[in-house]
């Protein structure tokens, strides 16, 4: 392994870490603003112009708050749980191509940390490991509401991994590769080549399970404030709670990258236009996460399971079978 590659990778890792932790903060700002506008409010207005510095204020607050470890909690697990959420969210980013390759001072940069040949599997696997954060944090908290939240996490965890995997199986069969770059190449021919046209069902299924993966409304029941306080986050304070938050928002951004990369042509032919297109699609999916939060109610845990096992999973299986038959003949 030559040192240029090593240095390049380290720089990429640092850049991704910095950009996405900042974006996670700014994501909370967008969320507050958009939710506020949809509810005819103004949202944060007082810190900085139009409340822009609210993110910095929250950051300072979270960093300087006392880190409380309550009695009766299982201390090591309680301490490690938020780190799992945040770390796995960023680890998932390693296999995502954020932009097409571009040249800086005659040196070609691939904006992907590692183009592993099991890209999608790795991304989804990492996001699934991220569920251990709420699960362990909730069980270690010595709090009934946290425990309930941990149980719900396990339910979502088991159910929606099935739907995610099965819905992606059909596009994977068509492309014949698990690398997200190969997915992008497959659709590089323009809008007509997008997988969403041949796999609309898989697209919708994956989109639905993306809400479960990130724990957003309407599948926000892991930390439903109006039922179980803050779920797994109830006993957390300060930066540990902040890590859960960063993990959640980073996950939202990454899954918003993954959906267009798989189904909507990604960055297309790799031109500047294609790169902007990918960012535009990403913004739409991120916006949609906030949009549904303003519009839709949450489902109950039993409805969630019902939806997964009785509706989405059969549809996903049928979709895979039909795709197989079509490819065979």
């Amino acid at each position, binding site marked *: 392994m030559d040192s240029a590659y090593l240095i390049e990778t380290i720089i990429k890792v640092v850049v991704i870490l910095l950009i996405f932790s900042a974006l996670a903060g700014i994501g909370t700002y967008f969320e507050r603003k958009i939710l506020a506008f*949809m509810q005819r*409010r*103004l949202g944060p207005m007082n810190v900085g112009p139009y409340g822009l510095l609210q993110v910095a204020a929250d950051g300072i607050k979270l960093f300087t708050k006392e880190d409380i470890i309550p009695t009766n909690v299982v201390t090591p697990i309680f301490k490690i749980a938020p780190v799992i959420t945040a770390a796995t969210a960023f680890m998932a980013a390693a296999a995502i191509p954020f932009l097409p390759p571009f040249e800086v001072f005659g040196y070609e940069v691939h904006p992907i940390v590692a183009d592993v040949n099991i890209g999608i599997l790795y991304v989804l696997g990492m996001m699934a490991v991220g569920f251990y954060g709420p699960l362990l944090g909730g069980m270690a908290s010595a709090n009934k509401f946290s425990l309930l939240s941990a149980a719900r996490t396990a339910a979502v965890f088991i159910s929606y991994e099935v739907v995610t995997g099965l819905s992606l199986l059909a596009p994977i069969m068509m492309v014949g590769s698990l690398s997200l770059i190969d997915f992008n190449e497959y659709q590089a021919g323009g809008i007509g080549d997008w997988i969403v046209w041949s796999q609309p069902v898989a697209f919708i299924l994956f989109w639905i399970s993306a809400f479960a993966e990130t724990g957003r409304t309407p599948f926000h029941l892991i930390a439903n404030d109006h039922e179980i306080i803050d779920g797994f986050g109830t006993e957390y304070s300060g930066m540990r709670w902040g890590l859960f938050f960063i993990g959640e928002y980073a996950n939202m951004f990454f899954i918003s990258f993954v959906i267009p990369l798989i189904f909507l042509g990604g960055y297309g032919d790799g031109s500047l236009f294609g790169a902007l297109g990918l960012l535009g699609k990403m913004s739409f999916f991120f916006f949609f996460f906030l*949009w549904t939060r303003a*519009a839709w109610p949450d489902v109950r845990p039993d409805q969630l399971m019902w939806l997964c096992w009785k509706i989405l999973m059969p549809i996903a299986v049928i979709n895979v079978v039909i795709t197989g038959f079509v490819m065979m003949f």
Partner: protein
Amino acid sequence: MSLEAFNNRNVAEGDYFLVAIEEYPTTGWDKFKRVVKRTFKGELFVGLWVVLREMIRFDIHTVQYPQEKMPIGPRYRAVHQMKRLWESNTERCIGCGLCEKICISDCIRMDTKIDENSRKEVTEYTINLGRCIFCGYCAEVCPELAITHSGEYENASEQREHFIIYEDMLTPIDKMKAGKQLEFEGFGAITPHEDERVKKTPLAY
């Protein structure tokens, strides 16, 4: 606009109707049909459209409080004031003690003495605003229109003992001399058309 609609307490009549609620499905086939109907009816998109419409309209209702304030009614009952006489600029309170007596939360404390002119003089007068429920009885009972409420609702201090002493409630003498004392229109005040309603005292019995 007539007040008819507001005065009519008989809610059983009028525009009320029962909402039609469909029967809950019992058989599996009916449940399945309901699921399919709900899936393809697009109700979720109605919700999405409503919030997006509000965002595009940008019809914001926020009142940015310290910079903007909502108008409050002239009869609003916030922190008390002690008024002065227009003729002589002296305090209206005659120390009769009625307000102390009527206060239902027992939060007015006062003390009086006979001064050198053999007039009753108020020496101590405090209202414990932490207990006051702002009912307005004290303003209502005061025979001199001395104690009234005001529209002042912003108070802050690091000591609750600061709320509230006589000197803080009393109209400042310079404001009084400038003729800027405002009469309170709410509890205890004389209604505007009182002159027409005055009748002769019936002395016949």
